[in-house]
């Protein structure tokens, strides 16, 4: 499988991004001056205690939100220069997501959920591609089931299939095993790393599970909104 980036080239970069929000207690700084560069095909874990700004960083990297200062370049596009629809198009083109709480559309069945990003990106053979990847995540016989008829692990498999279906340049995963028991979580991560290797997608994984983080090429540690370490893993 080939994705929409060139292996080894820079695919995602943060340039001094900060995020401040106003609260009753005054201005609150959630992230301050974070910079790094991620190459295509890398797998990167973002770790840190609760409140360190992991999820905010993920939101900014994926263009779900904009930084107060600094900017993010995703697959060649400066997200701060785009409006909401522009950022949506970049996501449709280059981004996949796996969420902690799965976020499947309850009114669509497994196949339709997987097809959704393909259709949004205007891919022609959406159905066949989706069936193939559903098969790959081990749900070949359950594609017609609705989210309410699936277990947590199965839901996350569908979510993973959806994330990889469009062969994104970057896959963002936010605590993907947070809502699963450890056995199921292990299998899910196994599946995710496998797919990541096969498709050479860039993986950005937010987690506070250090063991999981260790399986990535690189670990970024956040504390109190600042990047405190950036180290290459054993892999």
């Amino acid at each position: 499988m080939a994705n929409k980036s060139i292996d080894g080239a820079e695919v995602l970069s943060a340039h001094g991004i900060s995020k401040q929000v106003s609260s009753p207690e005054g201005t609150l700084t959630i992230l301050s001056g974070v910079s790094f560069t991620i190459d295509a095909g890398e797998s990167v874990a973002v770790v840190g205690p609760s409140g360190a700004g992991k999820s905010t960083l993920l939101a900014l990297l994926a263009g779900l939100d904009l930084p107060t200062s600094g900017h993010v370049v995703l697959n060649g596009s400066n997200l701060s220069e785009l409006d909401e629809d522009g950022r949506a198009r970049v996501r449709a083109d280059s981004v996949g997501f796996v969420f902690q709480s799965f976020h499947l559309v309850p009114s669509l069945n497994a196949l339709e959920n997987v097809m959704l990003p393909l259709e949004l990106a205007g891919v022609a053979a959406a159905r066949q591609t989706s069936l193939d990847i559903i098969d790959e995540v081990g749900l070949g016989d359950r594609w017609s089931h609705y989210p309410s008829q699936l277990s947590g692990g199965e839901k996350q498999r569908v979510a993973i299939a959806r994330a990889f279906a469009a062969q994104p340049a970057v896959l963002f995963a936010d605590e993907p095993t947070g809502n699963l028991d450890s056995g199921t979580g292990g299998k899910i991560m196994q599946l995710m790393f496998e797919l990541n290797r096969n498709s050479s997608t860039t993986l950005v994984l937010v987690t506070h599970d250090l063991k999981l983080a260790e399986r990535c090429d690189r670990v970024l540690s956040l504390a109190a909104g600042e990047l405190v370490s950036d180290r290459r893993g054993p892999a």
Partner: protein
Amino acid sequence: MKAILFALRSFGREIRSGEVLVLLAAVALAVGALTAVGFLTDRIGKAVARQANEVLAADLRLRSQEPIPDEWRQRAAEQGLRTAATLSFPSVVFHGEDSALTTVKAVSDSYPLRGAVRVADELFGEQREVAGIPGRGEIWADGALLARVDADIGDRLLVGDSELLITAVLTYRPDQSIGFASLAPSILVNIADIPATGLISEGSRVRYALLVAGADDAVAEFNAAMQNELPDSVRASNREESSERAYSAADRAQRFLSLTAVISVLLSAVAIAMSARRFALRRMDTVALMKSLGATQRFVITVSIVQLALLGLLGVVIGSVIGYVAEEGLALMLADLIASDLPDVGMMPVVLAGGSALVLLVGFALPSLIQLRNTPPLRVLRHDVMPPAPSRVLVVGVSLAAVAALLYRSVGDATMLAILLGGIVVIAALLYLVGRGLVAVMGRYRSGVGVAWRYGLANVARRGRASAVQVVAFGLGLTVLLLLTIVRTDLLEGWRATLEDDAPNHFMINIQPHERESVAGIFADAAIEPPDFVPLVRARMTAINGGSVKDREHPTPDGAWFVNREANLSFAGRLSSSNEILEGEWWPEDYSGPPLASIEEEVAMETGLGIGDRLTYEVAGREVEMTIASVRQVNWDSFQPNFFLMLSPGALDGMPTTYIASLRIEEEQQSVLVRLVRTHPSISVIDLDAILEQVRGIIEKATLAVQAVFIFTLAAGIAVLFAAVQSTIDERRFESAMLRALGARKVTVFSGVMAEFAALGVAAGVLASAGASALAAIIAVQLFELPYTFNPLLWIVGLAAGVIVVCTSGFLAARGAINAPPVDVLRAAG
């Protein structure tokens, strides 16, 4: 395109998930109410359109209470016009011992000049058009009359002195009334048979008419030429004016009915707004997800609009089916009341209701859905991020515009629309305040009740605004239904109670002077005290204080009507016991001076006439001048013969006089009437009991039909309740799980929820009972001048209906929340 496909694909699932059912139901109810009324008025409208051009059965009709001079007919014939003669009068006809008041319509050979008569060959049989009129010795009789006297085709009816053979059931004649059928069903007779019946004599109440038809300009020419010669007593009507009147009457009926439907539509709108908000809220997560996956705002909004349009379409289909079924029921209920048979339904009402549904959805659902467009994609990571709320001014403005658009069709005039819209806003605000008040009052009592009630009342108070809306929405429907059922019966009974038990129940009219003795004799033979014979002289007012009535400005339209109509005058020496002098003095019993008059107080007010005014009346070509000497109050409910104008004795001596009388005849004495009418066929006997019974029947059926329309209002109220409960269902589910996790038994949680609905039901019941009582009092005292008697049944039924219906609906709406296993709920919420 992909947005449309996506919308179509997920729509079925949305429907099955039940989330949008309330929204769908609200749309269907609005469409149902509109199409039910729409189908009916469309059919009536078509009947009118079909009939409007033939309401005279001619192009021009000259009508008079005197025979039409033959010379007029000849002149019309000379100008190449076709003519026909008709005359009609009320009479009692007999079949064996059964009798009924009927309108005898006698026609000449060429009748009708426009349109066609339709008959059936058996009761309720297939009708067909016929050329020509009944042969000599034959009649065609209205089915209602045949039913009343238990006769059928082939039987003979006694009409005056003649026995006439029934040869067909009369189902339609062009000049029958278009709207409600008249109280006396008609028989169609050959005009040549009338002399032999002996029913027409001097002073008889007969309407003669000359019908004319032909080329438009020839008719117009004839009409113009006649205008200068026609005496005041002849009324000329042409086809254009008559059909216009028919149209405007139909138009008024249509507007009234569509206004009743609008109340249901407005309540549905509230339900639509509530459930659309809930729908949008539920969709927010999906929208955020789709945006994170790369969906643009346009995609999101297209999906929403397509789904809303599909929902609207489905609502229109379901609503139209409901409307169609309801209309068939309505038409069935009204079948006896509507004189003409109704044409088939058309599709126009569906189109109009579809348009209204669109307006409703755009006005009340779209604002919530548009808000979805602005859902931040960040919501996939942080659930508390919401799109900015839509501008309140915009939402209210759009809804008001939608209501205005809906009402405009029923009102059809900008000023009326503004007044109505203002009225709706004020009434809604007042009702809402009353609702809030009731909710607040109930909240106070919660410290004095058990845990379940405390929990329920606390919920009602906490959701104060939504509770008030539910109370009002539901209470409104209930108010109208209480008014139409209990209050209506109360009013009718109240009026009956004011009548004296021995009040006369029969009127006799058209008694000739020489018949008085023999009529009295017949009653004396039957041991019934003979009635007083009251003289009646037909006259027309020509001048007031020496000036022509034509030049006079009358203070009120009713006054103008009184002055210009053919008047019934009477005279007496003694004041009747049902009269009371308010002003001036009654003349001495043996008075023999210049003519004096006593005027009834209301007429005096309407005409601006009073003591000292001089009135000139023309009676059979002679003029009589009289001076008003007193103003009287008349108790019309006494059923004694009474007159607006009473003259002093001798004032009308030598004028053509007939007599009328009223008396009480008990059920078992009815045979005396048969004898009376057999021996004096020209006397018309009017059975008041039968007429009252008929009037009651008409009122009952008409209110039943209006009630049926208001069932939609009640259903819309229930939809509001469902929508309100649904919008709190997540909260309820969580609360119920929490309480149960804390150790509450399921039954306790259930009782709490039911207590909440019972409280809402009580509040709605109080609102409805109080509203209906207040309206009943106003209607009784102001409109009918009856003393108002409080009926406790109104409150019992109102409260019981409120509690039962709200609890049942509430239970159905909320049971999912109560039954959800706590562990699932709490886990999902965590």
